[in-house]
């Protein structure tokens, strides 16, 4: 009969964190940026059907890097949580803070439970407010902690490099086209510093647009509209993005 080796709790947690981080790093990174009229999600995604970004509720969007089946599971859980909240109370009572807390609890429980393998996912929950000051962005790493972010956030593969690039260049009050271009530049920088081209077909872009007249502010930007936004210069985009509706 073999006796199990003693593994110190510190070591066990470090191993689990290492496992989760490696899993997340295999995926492509994605970025979430604030711009003048809302929040934009940009990522490289060769698939048209398996989305990295999705709508949770009226003003709340969801972005995830890592293993698809795991974050899809979390996404559906989030939609259920939000819809149930909104049905029981009121649509205004569904907040990103509440949702981020639920996700943190779930991820934290799974991470520290010995019976399960930790989820290899990193999430972003964003809520667009009436004004840019009201915007909220929460980053949820694999271990169940919550980080309250402002301006820009990157998750996935080389997230650290991308977020430092974004931190230096992101400003408040950017137009959608400016923010989008900055995001694409950040994503197309490789680890060794070289620049590569990401064609528009491989980009997945979505916005939470506070100027949308509908209650549901989430919108995917695809096809012609995306191409147009990528082409235009920063100056002439204000009028164009407002006439998109």
């Amino acid at each position, binding site marked *: 009969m073999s006796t199990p080796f003693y593994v110190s709790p510190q070591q066990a947690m470090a191993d689990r964190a290492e496992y989760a981080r490696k899993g997340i790093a295999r995926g492509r990174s994605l970025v979430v940026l604030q711009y003048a009229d809302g929040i934009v999600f940009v990522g490289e995604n060769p698939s048209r059907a398996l989305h990295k970004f999705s709508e949770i509720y009226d003003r709340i969007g969801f972005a995830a890097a890592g293993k698809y089946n795991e974050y899809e599971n979390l996404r559906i859980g989030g939609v259920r949580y939000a*819809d149930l909240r909104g049905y029981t109370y009121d649509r205004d009572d569904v907040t990103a803070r509440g949702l981020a807390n639920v996700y943190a609890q779930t991820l934290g429980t799974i991470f520290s439970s010995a019976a399960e393998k930790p989820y290899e996912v990193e999430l972003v929950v964003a809520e667009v407010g009436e004004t840019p000051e009201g915007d909220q962005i929460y980053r949820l790493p694999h271990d169940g902690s919550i980080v309250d972010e402002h301006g820009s956030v990157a998750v996935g593969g080389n997230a650290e490099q991308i977020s430092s690039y974004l931190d230096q260049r992101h400003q408040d009050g950017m137009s959608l086209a400016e923010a989008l271009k900055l995001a694409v530049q950040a994503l197309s920088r490789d680890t060794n510093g070289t620049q590569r081209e990401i064609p528009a077909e491989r980009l997945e872009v979505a916005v939470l647009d506070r100027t949308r007249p509908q209650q549901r502010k989430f919108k995917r930007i695809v096809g012609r509209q995306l191409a147009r936004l990528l082409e235009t210069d920063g100056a002439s985009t204000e009028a164009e993005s407002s006439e998109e509706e």
Partner: protein
Amino acid sequence: MDFLSEHQPELLPGKRQLPPTQGVIEAPHGTTIVAVTFPGGVVLAGDRRATMGNMIAQRDIEKVFPADEYSAVGIAGTAGLAVEMVKLFQLELEHFEKVEGAQLSLEGKANRLSTMIRSNLGMAMQGLAVVPLFAGYDVDREKGRIFSYDVTGGRSEETGYAATGSGSIFARGAMKKLFREDLTEEQATTLVVQALYDAADDDSATGGPDVARRIYPIVTVITEGGFRRLTDEESSGIARSILERRLEQPDGPRAALL
């Protein structure tokens, strides 16, 4: 929905035990809803009155709701239950759309509503029936479609026009004489207001346009571009022009004899 029935069944209609009662429970009832298709879409409209017995319970109730971007429900019957049913229906369509990443087909939506009405059968037998009218734009077939229901959840697709509620008999008669296949959107919206006027004319539970209080029927249009509710100015414009013509001809436009 399945999630809700597992986790919080008390939130679902039809899962509550009713105490046995004598006679009819008094609760506000919504009255007349009409719908008309036209090439390119469908119009759904309702009057603004809710009645409780022989009393007017509410003058400005809203009985036509968007179900999602391409469909709408108009409710007749017990107002409280109907509004809850619509809320749950909206929730379900939105939930499905978000989870699956695609909208339900129009048939799917209509079937779903049918099940919800059937689950209310117990209440209906105690006099608290809900009988909605469902209209939507079928994105696949590129046309407007109308579905009507009975209290048991029986569903039938209507061609051209349909009405439900206490004034529906009169509204249907009016629409039968006024309906044509080639209506424009504007003509269709006028037609539904005419039909509601005729319903209000002969049915005491249906409210006509209230010029003094500026309460006009709710008229909604669903086309390829999605759901749109006519603004107060637009619907009052239609109602006023009809009213003006009726001052000369109280029974409204006359159809040809042969």
